[in-house]
């Protein structure tokens, strides 16, 4: 039997919902005819035909309750006061409720309503505009690292990826039941006593059974040129020191990307981030990346500043493999080059640690307003489309989220990479967080 109700998720006990159909239907409602409408966009307009029967007082109580819910739903949509309201549906005996956010609602009388009302019954039309999908209640999502599997109590991550250290986590498709991309809630706790968490980038690479995750981190010491220096503060235990003096642009180093890795990206975009093992103090340094294939530059990125005192450099979007191909035979080899610009001919030394190709199947960048201290949390909730901090379980606005929310594609594994920046604009490899995740099943067809 169909179970239909409207209400909000903050007062979620079943009795707080206003039942329209099914076992919890409000007294006085004897019928609710609901058919999903067809829509191609993100919103859908629907009608629920309601039939009331009873004393005038009973019918008036139903109408008052409905109008109150409509007022609350519309007030949140228009004024962001209160809580979002949802149409709650259970279409089978599974016991699983599905929710669709009501964007706007209104109540209309049916034909001859006065006549019917006088006789003790009433027909009404509840018009709603809602999001064109239904989401389930939140489900804990087990996540895994290289040494820990199916963690639900907080997976520890650090700010680099090498033997014994993870900067990312997996969410496996077997743990996610969804028909549309499922909205995630990520709870990031700063576990680091030495570093506040200021900026945070989270990017995911999502892949189905026919593909695997490509290499996302290129250690500087695996690139060309320079001198390798051992350091316990560097990813993979060492960094690469490059010294040069030529004025203008210098092709400083390059990494050869394997054919299989190039193929795995399938034309995806990445946002490369270069970590420096030691900050530099040179003014006017610029960097850019290029892709070279068979000795020919086939892609050249925009130059970005390498700001003195910053521990990292963020580059613009790079699509891999670069250039337009069909993709059936696999790409020809491509090398990723790092170019550095400086003025004057004085000698410059840069200590490069690693180049991280942040995946962008889902991607959020949180710019810190209030760097999080140890044990404070950052919540990124795609279902509500909000991102906020928590200190001692109280909510606070700590970050500006450029994009809100991560979604996990159905029948895809997800590998989520984090890149952390502390309050001094450093990206220390030891910086640590723990991550918990939840998801909501999302579907369009009931």
């Amino acid at each position, binding site marked *: 039997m169909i179970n239909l109700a409207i209400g909000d998720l903050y007062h979620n006990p079943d009795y707080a919902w206003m039942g329209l159909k099914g076992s919890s239907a409000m007294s006085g409602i004897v019928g609710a005819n609901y058919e999903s409408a067809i829509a191609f966009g993100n919103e859908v307009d629907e009608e629920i035909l309601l039939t009331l029967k009873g004393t005038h007082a009973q019918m008036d109580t139903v109408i008052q309750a409905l109008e109150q819910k409509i007022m609350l739903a519309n007030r949140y949509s*228009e*004024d*962001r*006061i209160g809580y979002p309201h949802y149409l709650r549906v259970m279409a089978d005996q599974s016991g699983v409720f599905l929710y669709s956010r009501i964007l706007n609602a209104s109540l209309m009388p049916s034909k001859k309503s006065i006549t019917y009302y006088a006789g003790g019954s009433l027909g009404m039309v509840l018009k709603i505009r809602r999001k064109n999908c239904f989401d389930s209640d939140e489900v804990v999502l087990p996540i895994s690292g290289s040494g820990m599997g199916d963690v639900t109590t907080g997976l520890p991550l650090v700010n680099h990826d090498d033997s014994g250290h993870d900067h990312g986590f997996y969410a496996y498709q077997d743990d996610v039941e969804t028909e549309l991309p499922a909205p995630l809630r990520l709870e990031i706790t700063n576990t680091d006593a030495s570093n506040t968490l200021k900026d945070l980038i989270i990017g995911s690479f999502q892949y189905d059974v026919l593909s695997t995750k490509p290499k996302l981190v290129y250690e500087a010491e695996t690139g060309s040129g320079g001198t390798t220096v051992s350091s316990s503060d560097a990813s993979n235990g060492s960094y690469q020191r490059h010294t040069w003096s030529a004025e203008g642009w210098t092709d400083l180093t390059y990494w050869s990307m394997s054919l299989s890795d190039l193929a795995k990206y399938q034309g995806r*975009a990445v*946002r490369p981030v270069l970590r420096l093992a030691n900050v530099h103090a040179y003014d006017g340094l610029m960097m850019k990346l290029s892709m070279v294939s068979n000795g020919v*530059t*086939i*892609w*050249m990125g925009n130059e970005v*500043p390498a700001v003195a005192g910053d521990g990292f450099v963020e580059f*613009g*979007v790079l*699509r891999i493999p*670069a*250039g*337009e191909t069909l993709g059936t035979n696999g790409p020809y080899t491509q090398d990723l080059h790092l170019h550095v610009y400086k003025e004057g001919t004085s000698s410059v030394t840069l200590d490069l640690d690693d180049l991280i190709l942040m995946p*962008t199947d889902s*991607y959020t*960048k949180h*710019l*810190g*307003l209030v760097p999080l201290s140890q044990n404070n949390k950052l919540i990124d909730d795609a279902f509500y489309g909000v991102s906020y901090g928590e200190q001692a379980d109280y909510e606070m*606005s700590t970050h*500006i989220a*450029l*994009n809100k929310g991560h979604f996990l594609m159905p029948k895809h594994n997800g590998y989520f990479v984090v890149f952390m920046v502390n309050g001094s604009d450093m990206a220390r490899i030891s910086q640590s967080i723990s991550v918990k995740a939840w998801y909501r099943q999302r579907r369009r067809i009931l």
Partner: protein
Amino acid sequence: MVFLDRDFARTSQPEVEFTVETMRWTIEGGAETAVLRGDGRRVAVGELDGLLRCPVEIYNGLDEMVWWGFVSTVQYGAGKRRVSVSLEEMANRIMVRYTMLAPAGQMGEICQTGWADDLVSQAVYGVKELILERDGLDEQSAEQVRDMALAERSKPQVTVKHLGEDDFGVRLVCAGWMDSLKWKYVQPTAGMIANSPSQVGVQWLGYNYADLWLAQSITPMEDIAIQMVEVRLRKEGTPTDSARIQVQTDNAGKPSGTSLGQVLVSPSIIDSEGYPWVKFEFDPAVEIAQGVKVWLVLGRSGSPSTVNFYLVGVDESMAFAGGEFRVYNHVVTNWVKRSPDCDLLFRVTATQDTGVQMETAFADGNQFLDGVVVEETGVESVPYLARPMTCYDYLNRLLGMGIISGRKLIAEVDWERRLVVREQEEEGQNDFYVDEDGLFYDHLNNRMEEGMVPLGRWVRVKGLVEMPANFVEKVEWDGQLKAQS
């Protein structure tokens, strides 16, 4: 998108969610305008006024910044009224340029008041200057006009427009950073050093050995290249030798005799009536470094004659404070002061590379940008304005002159808020492409990401190889990207 505070620091974001209606870019500054729209039902009129002059950054879906500038107008839809609060007509530093009251049929003297400032408004929004122009005022009236204008305009200006249908949206009209260079005036004067008040006095030149040469010293305030010197000159009798001007170095407060350049003017083109301005054009121009004193030495190429000689207009009121006048008396073989003392009536016109002028104008007219990157263009022009002009207008005038090869100059404020001026690439060098679906590709045939624009690029249409490339001077995005050449 992200809003910063007026000091460019991160701050909490407005609770209204904005979407981008339009974005525009131009080669005269890069990001030009953007219009953002949010649902305004929950916004009270005035609630978002705090965003005015706040930096705004617009990102694409991959978090790449694609447009940046500042909020210049907030528009509140309030039913059938639209209330706009705007910085565009605001001015918190005002001056009045005016012509003095004058008898009928006569031109009044051009004067200007001092600046009047609203320091509170300036502290909040930055300095926004305005020069009002009025005719036929006295000093007191001009100052009254100025003070009234300041009182009216030193806060963001509010207008109300009645609409045909309900509007509850809130719109932010944003301007690119180049627009902020409209906020201050510049008036370069390095290109002209002159003393041209009414003539008071005449000095004979080459009449005898006591007035063989005349000299006026000048000291440029910037590096200049003297292209032309004009003096008020007439001939007496029928001299057959030329009038001559040299630019000489200084030696202990007198002309050294070392000429940096000279020009001769035939007596045939010098009138014998009145004191018209006579031009002496230097080719090549004479380059003088900033702060170096030189002498304009006027003489004749022949011997003195009491019948055929020259007369030079001077100013015995001594209005010129930038130098001294001397006469070479060959009888005593020395430069001597004239009695009564005077200054030469002269106009020196100097040129300067337009790239250098842009740097100077930017330094005078900028308050929010973080620097300028411009090379010398090889194009020389006179860095002089008779009346002030906004820094934006003056820079665009210089940009419009292009470079010596004839190619255009492209100015973009980059996302580090530096004004970067570069020259247009040659067609065919690194042309971009657009396909039949309107998607743009860079010169290496990589598709441009959402919001990245081919501004200042030559663009070819894929599939139409015979069609010449178009140079993109303006780009507009309103859900779709449109490039205009």
